[in-house]
């Protein structure tokens, strides 16, 4: 009952945008993920109830879109673009550097639950390559030194 109780206003606002409740599924899942850190089973149930679809239909969506996490992720989710423009400018080395620094492979979360590292496809910031996003902030023109600096500020 998380959404309807804690976020009633936001839910209302989202639902008002669309003539068909089903359209609200993705925005509501975002709301779930922002609130709970990932898309929880309870969240799925609730979204299904609010939008009047089956659990399967919500799960179909959750699993299609890569930005929805079906398991908890670290406090800092580091998403490094490793598509072509960033890779031309060393994104692969940056990932290796991050893996070394955090002691995890891309796709994993540190034992203390602080960092998750993943590689992602093009982030639409090729003019600032290489880039990464930590949670919701974009870091452009990265170098290993910049990364070290950024990590230092994350606790």
């Amino acid at each position, binding site marked *: 009952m998380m959404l309807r109780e804690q976020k009633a206003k936001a839910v209302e606002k989202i639902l008002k*945008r*669309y*003539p*068909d*409740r*089903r*359209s*609200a*599924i*993705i*925005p509501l*899942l*975002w709301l779930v993920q922002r609130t709970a850190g990932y898309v929880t089973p309870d969240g799925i149930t609730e979204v299904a109830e609010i*939008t009047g*679809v089956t659990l399967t239909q919500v799960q*179909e*969506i959750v699993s*299609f*879109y*890569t*930005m*929805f996490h079906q398991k908890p992720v670290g406090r800092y989710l580091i998403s490094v673009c*490793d*598509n*072509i*423009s960033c*890779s*031309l*400018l*060393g994104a*692969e*080395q940056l990932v290796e550097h991050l893996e070394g620094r955090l002691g995890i492979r891309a796709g994993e979360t540190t034992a203390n639950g602080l960092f998750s590292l993943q590689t*992602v*496809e*093009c*982030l*639409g*910031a*090729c*003019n*600032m*390559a290489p880039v990464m*996003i930590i949670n*919701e*902030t*974009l870091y452009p023109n990265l170098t290993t030194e910049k990364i070290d600096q950024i990590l230092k500020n994350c606790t």
Partner: protein
Amino acid sequence: MNCPYKIGVGPRNYAKLQWRIFHTLGPYCRGVLLYARETMSNQNPFKPVMLHDVDRKGYEPLAEYRARGGYKALEKVLTRVAPDDVTEIVKQSGLRGRGGAGFPAGVKWSFLPKGYQGPRYLVCNADEGEPGTCKDRPIMEKHPHLLLEGMAITCYAIKAKVAYIYVRGEYYTAIEVLEKAIDEAYKAGLLGKGILGKEFDLDIYVHPGAGAYICGEETALLDSLEGKRGYPRLKPPFPAVEGLYRRPTIINNVETLASIPSIIEKGPEWFRSLGREKSSGFKIYPVSGHVKRPGNYEVPMKTTLRQLIYDHAGGIRNDRKLKAIIPGGISTQVLTPDSLDAIADFEGIAEAGSLLGSAGIIVMDETVCMVWVAMKLSRFYHHESCGQCTPCREGTAWIRKIMERMERGQGRPEEIDLLLDLCHKINARSICPLGDGATPCIISTIQHFRHEYEQHISMGRCPFRSTEAH
């Protein structure tokens, strides 16, 4: 005769005047005039419309935007131009879609069923996901009102009362900025009921995506917006006839819509004059990769690749040799330096053997392994194929598997042709163009750099491995 600029005719009236003068002149004078126009545009360089003051901090708030003439175009159409005439103006401007396919915007709008009474929609495609493309982001992050104004004009033209902006989920800032700008617009009476005191209602909503390149394909975008998996639909019916919620729907790219206020303001002739016959106007070219100054460059569409890479982006890093250019996002064929003098418009790039696509130019210098590039790109398509149709789902996965082995030096000699055959079996047989887009990178790298593939196989490793990529 006098040069029109010298007698103080502003660019707005330039075209009109030019037209009048042109026909009173003899052939010699006409030649002079054409020459003068050529030089004029260089003396008086094109000023960015969408990337105006793009390095500013934060977005341009409503007040500032209006202070420099923002929303005047909207006011103009609301007071003086009938909806169908707006479409006509856009048609005359020759504005072609900036999302990739380059379909003339005005023509698309005129496909809406005539006399249809029910609701219809405008959807702005802000899912910018084509690697190498990053041109819609600055528009939304810096000049959201330009986009909103363009959308309002479009909605007026196509008689839509509701519009959605489908922004890819990773564009957190853009989403935030757009939400704020929309709030501002509502408060100022530029959205909502009775806009600017006229009989025109419009609601614009931002709809976030959640990480799926395929949702940039217009019908997948519609499915996604309807709360389904982003699966491209079978066409026909086309969205203009049966789109969002099965209602007539127009889908346009951010850049397309953001170009519209200036067309209304300065006239279609001005817009045409900036480009060539079939590719008119100005456009943002994102240039990335091994150039000295990667960035977005908004220039008239007459510009050549050479100008973009060498003049605007400052040439190749460390003054190395240019090896390859991807001219329009990764769904387009790789070009070699031979094509540098191609004009970067739809026809120019097509003549050079590729496509303008979304115009994301990726520049690669001599240190780059083309097999590695093809492998990277094949990974992308495997990751982003929606999986709905057989050839794309299975084909992209298969190609990726071969490419990964190929890059490691574990390919087989016959697999180069197998790759070509697989591409052939995907091409033109998938539901949507993603399948078609997955093959040019393979086909063109084999075409231009087959020896690199062969080297990988014969050496059993990547010949570029030891050289650094920077």
